[in-house]
Structure formats: C-alpha cells, structure tokens
C-alpha cells in the first residue's frame, strides 16, 4: 500500500509541528549545568580596589545574578530578589554586566540592594564565560562550585518555589550528612 506512505509521513510531520507549538524556540539551555562555575577575579562594585572570586564561596550554596542598570527586565525581578535576600535562604551575589559604576550604584541605592556583594564585568568577558546572552540571568552554584541550575530571564515566583528553592534545600541537606 505504497500510496499511503505520504499520508503517514505527513501525520508524523503534523505531530512534530503540534509538539513544537508548546516549545519556546528562544530558550537556550545552558551547557554549563553540572559543570564547574567558570573562575573569575573581578573588582568589587563597592570597593574597586578589592576583588572577588567564586573560589571564596566553596562550601556554600549561592546564587549568581547578572544584572545592569540599563536592563528593563531586571526591575521586574528585583522585588523577588529583595524578598529572597530578606528571607536569608540563599545568599545572592551580583554580576554587574557591561555597566557604568556610577549608574549601577545609583540603581542599587534607588531600588534597594539584595546582594551580599557585586562585581563589575565591564567588558562582558565573564558574561561570555558563563554563556550570558541577555540579562537578567541567574545561576545556582553548589558547595563544590558546580553550576546546578540556570534561570534565563527574570526570576519568577514559580521558578523560585518549584525549582530553585527545592534544589537549594537538597544541596544544603547533602553536606549536612
């Protein structure tokens, strides 16, 4: 019944297209999941004479949040970050991406500062190492310095509750044993 072949092929194609409707072609999953967080040594935003490196946080579970004063979506997630930092569940460190120091400090004083500290990635090189393509992006890093989760775009209550916080809980429990 070779004349039915085109029909079968089309059915497969249609199934594929239907499946495609539920996907977002713009979401790019990170290849860095379960890989060590790339090292860097950047000047701090508050005291540029001092530097910070993720090495210092081995043994802790923490969030690295990329943001900029010119980024509109960053304003969206900011209240969540503030709430998260008040809850003291997981420390938030900021990567100020391709920004101007004065603008960044101004932004923080206006909007509030949820970060333990910030580093300046002025030319975006560290961002490239982390695979940043559009701020804001947030990385969850574990005690061994391995990236466990990446949030593309602003943090949402749903992603926090359903994904990030549970993972944080697991990671914290792990080493307690």
């Amino acid at each position, binding site marked *: 019944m070779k004349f039915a072949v085109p029909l079968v092929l089309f059915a497969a194609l249609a199934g594929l297209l239907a499946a495609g409707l539920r*996907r977002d072609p713009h979401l790019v999953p990170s290849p860095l999941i379960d890989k060590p967080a790339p090292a860097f040594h950047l000047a701090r935003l508050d005291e540029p004479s001092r530097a910070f490196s993720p090495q210092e946080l081995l043994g802790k579970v923490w969030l690295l949040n990329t943001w900029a004063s010119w980024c509109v979506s960053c304003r969206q997630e900011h209240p969540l970050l503030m709430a998260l930092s008040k809850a003291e569940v997981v420390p938030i460190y900021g990567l100020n991406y391709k920004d101007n120091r004065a603008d960044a400090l101004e932004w923080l004083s206006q909007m509030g500062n949820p970060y333990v500290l910030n580093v300046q990635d002025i030319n975006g090189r560290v961002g490239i190492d982390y695979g940043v393509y559009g701020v804001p992006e947030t990385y969850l890093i574990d005690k061994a310095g391995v990236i466990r989760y990446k949030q593309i775009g602003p943090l949402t209550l749903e992603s926090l509750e359903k994904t990030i916080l549970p993972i944080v809980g697991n990671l914290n429990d792990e080493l307690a044993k």
Partner: protein
Amino acid sequence: MPSPATIGQFALIAALLLASLQATLPILGAARGKSSWIALAKPAGQWQFIAVALAFCCLAYCFVTNDFSVLNVASNSNSQLPLNYRFAATWGSHEGSLLLWTLMLAFWTAAVSIFSRHLPETTIARVLGVMGFISVGFLLFMLTTSNPFTRLIPVPLDGRDLNPLLQDPGMVVHPPMLYMGYVGFSVAFAFAVAALISGRLDAAWAKWSRPWTLVAWTFLTCGIAMGSYWSYYVQGWGGWWFWDPVENASFMPWLVGTALIHSLAVTEKRGAFKSWTVLLAIAAFSLSLIGTFLVRSGVLTSVHAFATDPRRGLFILGFLGIVIGGSLVLYAWRAKQVGLGSPFDVVSRESFLLSNNVLLAVAAASVLLGTMYPLVIDALDLGKLSVGPPYFNTVFVAVMAPAMFLLGIGPIARWKKASIPELARRLRWAFAASVIAAIVIPFYVEWKPLVSLGLLLAIWITATMVLSLSDKLKTVNLKSLPRGYYGMQVAHLGVAVVIVGIAVVTGYESEKDLRMEPGDSVSVGSYDFQFKGLDLVSGPNYEAIRAEMNVFHNGAIIVRMHPEKRIYNVSGNALTNAAIDTSVFRDLYVALGEPAGENDGWSFRIQYKPFVDWIWAGAFLMAIGGVLALTDKRYVTPANKKIRIPEAA
C-alpha cells in the same frame, strides 16, 4: 454611511458565506449529476472574489486615510508614513497579509472560473469546490482569530508606525508577487484533488494543469527573487539568501513546483507517472500551507516571523491536517486506479525528466529536513541545535549539481528511447569545452574549486542549449519552433546565469569592516573608497546621518555613494540604508555601522560583489521562459475544432 471598516467586516462575512456555498454544492452536484448545483460554482467563486476584493479595498482605504479607529491601522501605520507605504502597510501585519492571501486565492478562483472553456463543467465544479474549501478555511481563520477590522476604542491620535524595514519599494511588490505564486499552486492542487475525487486523471487534466502551474511557478520565481534582492539591499550585510525558515518556506514549493512542471510534461506526453504528478501537485501547495503555518505560529525563530501566537498556530495546524491530510487520504484511496500510460525506456528523455524530478524532490525534502530538524531534536528532548547556511549550502549544492548536469542532457535525449552511446557522441564536444573553460577561466582571477564547478555547470547548460538549437535549425526554421521550446531554453539559460552569479560572487567577493574618519581611504577589490564626511538629512518620517563616500578606480572617481543611518521619528527605530552602486559585472556596497570614537569616526562595512546581479537577472530570465511557455499557441487555440484524421499508415 457605515465606515469602511464596517463594510469590510461585512464583506468578509459575505465572502465566507459565498465560499461555503462554493465549497459544498458544486462538488455534491458533480457527484449526483445535479446540473443546477454544478452551475453554482462559477458565480459563487466570482462573487466571492468581489466580496474579498471589497474587504481588501476597505482595509486599504482605512490605511490610506489614516483611520486609526481600526486596530490594525493603529498598530502598523502612521500619518507621517508616505502614501505608498501606507498602502503597503495593508499587508504588513499578520491579519493584513492573511487578507492578501485570501484575496489572491479568490483572484485565482475567479481566473479559473473564467479561463476554463476547455474543461467539462463537472471538472470545473470540483476544482472550484476544492478552492472554495480552502477559502472557507482562511476566511474562518481571519474572522475568528485574526480579524483585520477589529476596532480600537478610544481612537488614538496616531499610529505606531510601520516597521522601518518594511518601508521600502520591496514591500510594495514582493509580498503580492510571492503570494500570487504561493497561492497559485492551489489551482494545481485543486485540479489534482478534483481528479482524485472523480477517479479519473485524463489527458485534459494533464494538459490544462500545466498552464496554471506554469503561471504560479512564474510568479513564485519572481516573488522569491524579489525577496532575495530586497533582503540584499535592506539588511545591511550584503547577503542575498540565508536559508531562514521563512525563505525556505517559499523555496520548497518552488522546488516541488519545478519538479511538477517537468513531471506534467511527461504525463501529458505519455500519460505516464500520473500518480506521481498528482502527489507533486498536492505536495507543492501543502508546502505553501506549511510555510504559512511556520511564519505565524512561533514554532521557529526567523527574521521574518510575524508576531507569534500558539493559538493561531493550532488553528492553522488543524486546517493543515484537514486539507493536506484529507487530500492524502484521498490519494491513498484513489491513486492506484489511474492507469500506467505508455511505457518508455530506462534511458529516454522521459527518464531524464523523472531523474530530475527525484533530484528536485530530494532537494526539497532536504530543505524541509534541515528546517524542521531543530524542532525534531527539541521535541525528542535531545537538546537544542541550529541548522544554518553551512548545512544547507553543502547539501543543496551536492544534490542539485547532478540535476544541473542532467539539465544539459535531457533536452537533447530522444523521447521514449534514447541511446547512451549516441548521446555521448553528440555531447562530447560540449562536455570537453565546458570542462576546459571551467578549469581555465578561474585562473584569470584565482582558482577555486566551487567557482570551477559552478562555471562547469553553467557553461555545460549553455553549450548543450546551443547544440540543441543548432540541431533543430538543421531541419526547421526559427519561426516554426513552438514557443514552448523557446520558453524551455530561455528558462534553462536563466538557470545557467544564476549559477554563474552565485559561483562568482561566493568565490570572489571581498569585504572590509573597519572604522574610518573623514579623509580616510581604504581599498576593496580594485576600488578605493574615500570617506569624505557626514551630513544630516531629513526624510518624510525620519532623520538620517548620511556619509559621503567617493569611489575611485584607477585613480579616477567613478561614483559618489551615500549610505545612511536613519532614525524613524515615530518608533525611534534605527535602520541602516546601504548605498549600492550597481553594474553588470559588480556591485559596490557600502553600509554604515556604528559611531566609533570622536572626529566623526564611524564603522563601515564595504563590500565588492562581482556578478551578484546575475543571480536576479537569471531568475528574471527563468520567469520570462515561463511566460513564453505559457503563451504557446497550444493553450490559445480554441478546443474542439475538427481536424481531418489521415488514414492509418
């Protein structure tokens, strides 16, 4: 007096009713022999066209008169927009372009209803019925999910402006031309489905499918070429084809349409391969529909995509399922009933034509594979990957090169039974000349394998064309050769010209991307570009920074070029307007990038593109070939004339 938007709205509803009538009664009438129902087909189709045309005119009127109470106008136009772009903005949005689609379909419907004296009424009834069914789908889609006449209250004072990329003559011409082609394949589709419904694929079907397919193909060729040219001068990076999903969506029907034209030639002559021809006719239009889906559903990332909405995507997908799925079910059920026709040898012109069919079909399938593959991998949860020009260029050239080679042999081979030794003998000089020229010519500039391959194919096609013509002229005089023959040769020559253009520009183009200050000079190719300075100019709805670039060749100034960076008043969008100096053997291309440092320094992209216009000139030749074939007198002389049948020999 109701507003034009209201009239337009009602016109669409009327069109839907008429299309529903057109889609149902004639087909039922043909099945039951009710001539009154059969007779409804033509008037229903023609009145549907009038209703859709009225709706279209109303929407265009709203745009031209700046009626911002219509949401579509407010979202896509602005009072500062020049008149021609206000008109073109009618089809600048998803809703508007759907209306254009529907208008084209209605136009083809009316055309079929008028130019069909040679076909039995029942056939026409079925053909118009199938087209009516498709019209119903699009009209329903518009009225339920994408109404161009939705009102906006309160009425804004002005609109959001048309995307600057679309504010261009290309926008006025490319979509209508493309849609004429794209949608035109619906006629061949309707003929095929009508034939399957009746259970008969007879000689009349084969003969009359051909001109309709040719017309659609010709329009699509022009539409694609225009899209490519428009992209070239508007995108600012000098590219002319990117294998973007939307470009592929128009190219796949073109490839299948080309296969269809050639397959129809065999089917008409020998009555053979009917089921394959029918499948191609279904496939060509199906690919048009799939393309329409891809552009509007958000399933793939593309420069061209309209604002995406999965709900709309679902509707179109459902519609696709019914139309394509339905026709393929019909195919599976009825295709085996059609006869095999006259046989022909394994080596014959027919088999060369069919090999070319296989190659074109594989090429189309490969483009589909590459376009859909990221989706396949994502749906199977195997991650995300991209398939871009490096893949398509490799695969497409590999599959099409043999087809181009066959292009030379096919027209020379005898019908029904050809002999390879004889073909080899007739073609050996053409082959030798092509090989030698292809190897030698590139040394003049710089030898590159792909340039050589391109030249080999192009010269081969031209040489065999000359050979065929000179052979024919030994026995026949120039005037008595049918136009169809000239059409074929001109179209094939067009292919050769396109190949030359692509090979040379890809092999020998050069570019410089650099920062220049006024007074600086740089050489690209054998030309010297001197940046004189910047100027501020005003357009009807934009402000622009214009650079003056003097171009020298052998020390003498040959042209002054003025690339611009425009900032549109309403949207604030910036657009690069490249300056292009066109000439038969090369284009010079200068585009402004970004401001760089003090002293009026800017980054420039300067390109030397040899033979690039040959690509579009070749496409134009192909279209002319199509027109020539169309106007062959076999389609023009009245049918049913009595001919004296001589005694059998």
